[in-house]
């Protein structure tokens, strides 16, 4: 199995572990992530306005390049995934946005949302299968109590992301079971940590991330996992807790014995 792969800006800098362990585990599980040539930063937050065109172009370029390679596009960072998948939906469903983007790009073959966008976790669930991951585990994380932090961007808007049930997701808990650990039940797993305002309003970011970390700790977690470098930063730096927050790919690498 080979996929086009969009790492995004942070996975090349502060979020290197998310990328590095993701690639190692992909090879161990029998799929290859082929990094897109000349990808550009997606902008990190989805531009919601219908008259925002320039801010959607970098996502479209990645989608077009994947279509032209005849592949599907895999992402790892929650924010990139959200931006690229929502822009893809605009290209498919909003004729005005699609017209203006295509006029600007002047592609040989106009783009209308043909590319399938998958998050790495969806590849694990739907292509590899959690049973096969369980069978490939060399060091099961027995006895570990892991809190799955979904945050916002993997799940919402549910009708566009189609990742899991946006209110009662199970994919990360199923992942945790597959690597031999125990998922913790907790309420704040899909509530916002406030990461996007951590530059503009640190107090607000501290308040939100504190609520999330307190809930994970009081429900007995020994570790919080995430797919988002911004959540990881915000929960660790502003969450006021000593509970470790790690990328899900790092725990997978540990379980598969490739760390």
């Amino acid at each position, binding site marked *: 199995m080979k996929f086009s792969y969009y790492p*995004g*800006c*942070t996975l090349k*800098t*502060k*979020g290197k572990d998310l990328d590095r362990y993701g690639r190692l585990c992909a090879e161990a599980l029998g799929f290859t992530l082929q990094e897109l040539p000349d990808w550009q*930063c997606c*902008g*990190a*937050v*989805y*531009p*919601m*306005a*219908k*008259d*925002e065109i320039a*801010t959607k172009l970098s996502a479209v370029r990645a989608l077009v390049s994947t279509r032209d390679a005849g592949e599907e596009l895999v992402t790892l*960072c929650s*924010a990139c995934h959200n931006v690229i998948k929502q822009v893809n939906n605009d290209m498919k469903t909003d004729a005005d946005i699609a017209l203006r983007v295509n006029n600007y790009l002047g592609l040989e073959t106009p783009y209308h949302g043909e590319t399938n966008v998958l998050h790495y976790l969806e590849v694990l669930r739907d292509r590899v299968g959690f049973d096969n991951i369980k069978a490939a585990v060399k060091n099961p994380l027995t006895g570990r109590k892991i809190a799955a932090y979904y945050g*916002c*961007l993997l*799940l*919402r*808007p*549910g009708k566009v992301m189609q990742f899991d049930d*946006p209110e009662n997701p199970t994919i990360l808990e199923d992942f945790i079971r597959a690597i031999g650990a125990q998922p913790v039940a907790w309420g704040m797993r899909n*509530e*916002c940590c*406030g*990461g*996007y*305002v*951590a*530059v*503009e*309003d640190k107090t*607000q970011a501290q308040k*939100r991330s504190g609520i999330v970390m307190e809930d994970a700790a009081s429900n007995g977690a020994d570790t919080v996992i995430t797919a988002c*470098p*911004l959540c*990881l*930063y915000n929960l*660790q*730096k502003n969450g006021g807790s000593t509970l470790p927050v790690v990328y899900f790919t790092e725990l997978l690498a540990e379980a598969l014995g490739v760390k």
Partner: protein
Amino acid sequence: MSHSNHATEQVLRSSGVDVRKCMRCGKCTATCPAFDEMEYHPHQFVYMVEKGEIEKLAASPSIYKCLSCFACVDRCPRGVEPAKLVEAVRLSVIRKQGQNHMSPDAIPALLDEDMPQQLFVTALRKYSK
């Protein structure tokens, strides 16, 4: 058409929101993780846009408090999507000359060594043009 009507039309067009669908249940505000930071809450954005009170919204710091978490977008039973109004009002402000809420020059002083790149990219996208 008055200035206020133009501004309202622009916000409605840019957001794509149909404010008339709102039934005033308040779920958007109840679920908003930033509601107590806001002078005007998400449900107020909906009815104030409906009444054409764009200038009040545009002058309020509330437009910089939205976390872009899509909770109000997903949890509205009528599909009103209030976050799109917050964004459209914010854009109507920062698109004007000299109205950027944050400039790239301000960023170095706000840095810490662990901040991920996506955070600056986001700040510039949300607060400046």
